[in-house]
């Protein structure tokens, strides 16, 4: 009879910090997609597929930083990521009887 296995403990999504052109506070959700597809040699396509990062925050994210490139660093929660990224767009999501949240999407450049 097989021995009873001990329960596995996984990394909680806690203690995560997000930095791009300064630290972002009140981040309630994020996702990133790593590079895939084309190799570095195919410059334009490589940029297209270098990866995407998206965050959602309770803080208002300024659209004035649109098009700016800065170092993007995510640490903690086993969600670490780093790269240079450009702010693609900012969107706003008001919720009836809830809180307004903002989403910023980045494109990873290298």
């Amino acid at each position: 009879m097989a021995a009873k296995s001990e329960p596995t403990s996984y990394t909680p999504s806690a203690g995560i910090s997000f930095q791009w052109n300064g630290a972002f506070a009140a981040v309630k959700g994020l996702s990133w997609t790593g590079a895939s597809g084309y190799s570095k040699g195919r410059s334009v396509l490589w940029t297209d597929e270098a990866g995407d990062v998206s965050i959602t925050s309770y803080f208002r994210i300024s659209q004035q930083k649109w098009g700016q490139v800065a170092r993007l660093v995510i640490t903690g929660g086993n969600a670490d990521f780093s790269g240079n990224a450009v702010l693609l767009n900012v969107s706003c999501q008001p919720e009836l009887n809830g809180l307004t949240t903002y989403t910023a999407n980045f494109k990873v450049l290298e």
Partner: protein
Amino acid sequence: MAKTSFVTPNDNSGTTVSFAGQEYKCTDLTWSKTDITATDEIDTSTLDQAAGETVNTQPRPLVGNTGGDTGWSLTFNYFGNTPIEDGSSGPVVVSGNVQITGNGTCTDSSITATRNEVITGSATIRLDRPDTQALKATLKKTDDGSKK
């Protein structure tokens, strides 16, 4: 040794149910009270919080609830072949060892006819809360988001 006290059990004989002036031949009833303020907060936790920290919450911006739910309801089954009109309102009186006196609105009503059984009805009555104003005051917020 600590003395254990027991509540005297009550039977349900002699229980009568009337709604909107109509008395029903009730076969069973459930009277429930739910604290609708208990879950009416927004989870504002963020990813930068450390594991083990308390969940952050914030009161909702609108006072009260949006669905008209008072958290109090009476559900009962009865002998009858006519469903209680949904949305109908009136006095609710339950007497016997369960006692309710107030007003309510029918939110759900049905009739069930089963082979070799008598026809039965079922109704859920949303009971008005006598403390509605107090409830709203509890939910009223100050500008900084804290409860008064």
